[in-house]
């Protein structure tokens, strides 16, 4: 092996250690949300703090820096070796970005943030339960402050929010997101106004649904999607999530809604979509950027793909509605397919983001984006959040929360300190639509295949187009490479107007 290859391997080995450490923290998070005894919260905060400190130290160590510097100039980004493969070059570029990002933050800052997050999650949980925004507000204040400082450490050209967004969606700016979101909002809100005048009957989707039957059906879906149960598992948590520490350990959580049949199904498809992406990442590249997911926006495109493009489609339910009917015979035997399909696609403004329908969902995200952008730029104060939240809900979606638990306290993200994360939810929809258009073109019989219960070929397509590439390409490059087209929001707008035009005969 020549010197360059040896250096690359050394670097990869060191980086693998970082990924392992990150995986351990992910498991601590998973446990905190699923099984941890409540009294252990402050100890868990200390554990996470220690892990964050160690991970940070390792990622910014002189040894790692030296190893990286052998292959790529950290300042200029020029390669120091001529015999690197294109893949390796791509990987080194990403490593360099990661390193520069990691060294931008002092370790005390990272540790402090990790501890604050852990405490804030607890405070948020209680505040949500007791509908007491006041309890959470001081933590949110501190989290906003620290995120502002974080943005300063990272640096930005136009907007401090750019620096935060960059962590989750490195290829896109605040300005671009603002423009896309504004277009989306102006497209959806008027459409929504037309739609809400028509009432679809979906009352038969509400009732009492046996929990274990719900989970049996859920496992059928996961199995069909190709979710390996020996590399993943399903648990319950108050806010569903997926948590991966390695392609062989990619877990999801769900929750059983007290009355809604579709809630758990949609969560399973969504989190299952995330988890399949992680399971499909090239394991031989574990520890290098080539073995990591591209961006959260792309991640979200994978979950929304399964949740909406598959899970809310006619062909999917052609196959699975009979199975569901068999599972809940008493409740569903008299329901016709068309009524079921219309019901699950019913557009109905609702208060809770994770329960929102496909059309109103992006509006929930846009609202959060605007608020958090305002918090970071300092034009909005934490204490004004509840009021602003409610106003925007009214304006965009046409309804208003009665309390903060179903308003600004509903999501865990701010408690986790994750500013810049929300936009990826809506971007994920747009990416998914863009990708799906190409998928449908390449697989003209997809509807027939899916209606026969085949789902494997979908995962295989995604494996080939998305999973296997890790972070080899930037988000926009990846989208173009997969589809042959430059990314735009057009596919999404077309999809929405076609689908809902039909359902609502507009």
């Amino acid at each position, binding site marked *: 092996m020549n010197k360059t290859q040896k250096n690359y391997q050394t670097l990869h080995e060191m980086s693998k250690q970082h990924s392992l450490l990150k995986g351990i923290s992910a498991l601590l998070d998973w446990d905190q949300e699923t*099984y941890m005894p409540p009294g252990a919260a402050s100890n868990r905060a200390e554990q996470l703090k220690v892990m964050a400190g160690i991970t940070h130290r390792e990622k910014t160590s002189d040894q790692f820096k030296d190893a990286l510097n052998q292959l790529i100039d950290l300042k200029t980004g020029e390669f120091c070796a001529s015999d690197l493969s294109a893949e390796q070059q791509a990987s080194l570029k990403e490593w360099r970005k990661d390193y520069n990002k990691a060294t931008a933050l002092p370790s005390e800052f990272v540790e402090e943030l990790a501890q604050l997050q852990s405490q804030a999650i607890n405070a948020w949980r209680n505040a949500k339960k007791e509908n007491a925004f006041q309890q959470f507000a001081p933590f949110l204040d501190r989290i906003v402050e620290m995120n502002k400082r974080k943005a300063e450490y990272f640096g930005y050209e136009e907007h401090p929010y750019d620096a935060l967004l960059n962590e989750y969606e490195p290829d896109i700016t605040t300005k671009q997101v603002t423009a896309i979101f504004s277009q989306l909002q102006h497209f959806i809100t008027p459409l929504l106004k037309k739609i809400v005048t028509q009432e679809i009957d979906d009352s038969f989707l509400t009732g009492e649904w046996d929990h274990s039957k719900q989970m049996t059906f859920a496992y059928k879906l996961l199995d069909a999607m190709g979710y390996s149960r020996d590399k993943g598992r399903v648990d319950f948590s108050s806010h569903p999530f997926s948590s991966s520490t390695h392609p062989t350990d990619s877990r999801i959580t769900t929750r059983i809604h007290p009355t809604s049949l579709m809630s758990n199904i949609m969560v399973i498809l969504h989190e299952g979509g995330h988890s399949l992406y992680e399971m499909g990442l090239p394991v031989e590249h574990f520890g290098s950027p080539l073995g990591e997911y591209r961006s959260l926006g792309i991640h979200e495109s994978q979950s929304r793909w399964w949740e909406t493009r598959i899970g809310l489609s006619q062909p999917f339910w052609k196959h699975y509605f009979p199975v569901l009917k068999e599972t809940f015979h008493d409740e569903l035997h008299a329901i016709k397919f068309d009524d079921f399909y219309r019901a699950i696609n019913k557009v109905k403004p609702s208060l809770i983001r994770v329960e929102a329908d496909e059309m109103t969902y992006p509006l929930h995200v846009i609202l959060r984006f605007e608020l958090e952008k305002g918090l970071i730029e300092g034009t909005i104060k934490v204490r004004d959040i509840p009021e602003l939240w409610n106003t925007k809900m009214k304006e965009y979606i046409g309804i208003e929360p009665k309390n903060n638990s179903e308003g600004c306290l509903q999501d865990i993200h701010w408690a986790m300190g994750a500013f810049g994360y929300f936009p990826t939810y809506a971007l994920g929809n747009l990416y998914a639509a863009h990708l799906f258009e190409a998928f449908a073109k390449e697989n003209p019989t997809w509807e027939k295949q899916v209606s026969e219960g085949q789902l494997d070929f979908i995962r295989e397509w995604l494996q080939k187009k998305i999973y296997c590439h890790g972070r080899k390409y930037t988000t926009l490059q990846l989208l173009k490479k997969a589809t042959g087209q430059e990314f735009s929001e057009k596919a999404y707008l077309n999809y929405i107007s076609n689908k809902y035009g039909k359902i609502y005969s507009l």
Partner: protein
Amino acid sequence: MTNAQYCFQQLYNLSRQNKVLKGISSLLDWDQKTYMPSGAAENRANQLKILAGITHREKTSLSIRNLLSQLIDLKSGNLTAIDLTPEQQLIVQEWHREYLQNSVLPTEFVEELTKLQSQAIAVWHVAKKENDFQKFAPFLERLVLMNRQKADLIGYTDHPYDALLDKYAHGMTTEQVTHLFESVKNFTISLLAKIKSQTIVDDFLYSSWDSAKQMAFAQQMLDAIGYSQQIGRVDFSAHPFLAVSHPTDSRITTSLHEKSLIKNLLFLLHEAGHALYETGLPVEHFGTALGEHCSIAIHESQSKWWETHIGLSEPFWHHFYPILQKSFPPQLEKITFHQFYQAINKVQPSLIRLEADEVTYPLHVVLRFELEKDLIAGNIRVKDIPESWNAKMQQYLGIRPKNHSEGCLQDIHWAMGVFGYFPTYVLGNVFAAQLFSSFAKNHPNWEIQVAQNDFSLIHTWLKNKIYCQGRRFKSSDLIQLVTGSELSEKAYFDYLKTKYSKIYEISIK
């Protein structure tokens, strides 16, 4: 702040961080045994390896050495700092002892061993399931080899096993244990000879018991003895265990027995006994020896205390038996208290250590001790283990396993690379008996209180005598301090004689 206080504070920060990392490893281990997807074993091994490596590097770092050497002479162990409080002195001495123990093991060795352990556990699970010792043997060979290397690195005067035993029963030697175990073995075999012929009916304990009802009853029991769900939880695993990361996070597992009701309940009392010790340790001392358990052997005395002295006692069931009857009316409504008490204390040689009764249990442990001592000394080969196991089972208990899954593959310990641990199970019995007889002497009305579901007397006593002491003393010194007499097996023998002569209506001298 003086230099000594500054050094102490720095060492404390490092020590606390290491304790936190240990807690994280314990959670990874808990997850591996409870919820981890099977395909993730290799990755988990790597995670544990890296944590072990980091912890070890931290524990043996130059900065620890430099800080310590400003407080204590590293060679002689004599304190050199003058302005440390007596508590701080003790803490520093323990840091010094740990430092010496850790610094003899190279980081690569620790990482390697940790990874091997994690792989071996996965293989052991399969081998046990498939009754295939061959599959496990190469891993066991490597584990024995590495443990022997470990013993050589740590150093010993008489027997390489001393070096391993010390970690779990600090202050006890192989010779002492060998001697004590001979005595226990002879006593038990002769006791068994007397009660073997007697018969107690316990068929009714073996039927089908609804798991949800079992766990609901178990929860009442755990609530009563003070194991709080705020700081603990109960899960299921192949082999019951305790996973601690902090006095506020002390989890236990159990395994539901297909047929036996009482096994699950005793597992839970056993593990909860461990957990109560951990949750009772002074949290303000977390990260120093004062906030640590004394030794594994003392730990085991705490589990045995609740499992046998309470969980197999008449007063405990005076309260709980009526509740149990109500939970399982079809199976128990016609069974009298006396029948029940006799049945749960029935002595009957059996193949599985975890299912053994109180009397035969030590023989299972003595057997394992003898085998692992010989493995480490090189007097026996891994390939001979199955045969030696079976021969000893025949000799001590009069029965022979039909396959390795119920023989030498039954326990996880060797797969975990843990040698020197088994003896603590019997030391726990012996310690528990000596402690309990002292407790009972001080509190002659304990039986009345326990029969009224009141455990406050016990909690206070254990808290004041054991928990609060952390690791201020060596095991045997703690026993002497608490009971006023030297460590001896007498109380243990007396306890068994009194209890079983009554149950079996025989005279035992």
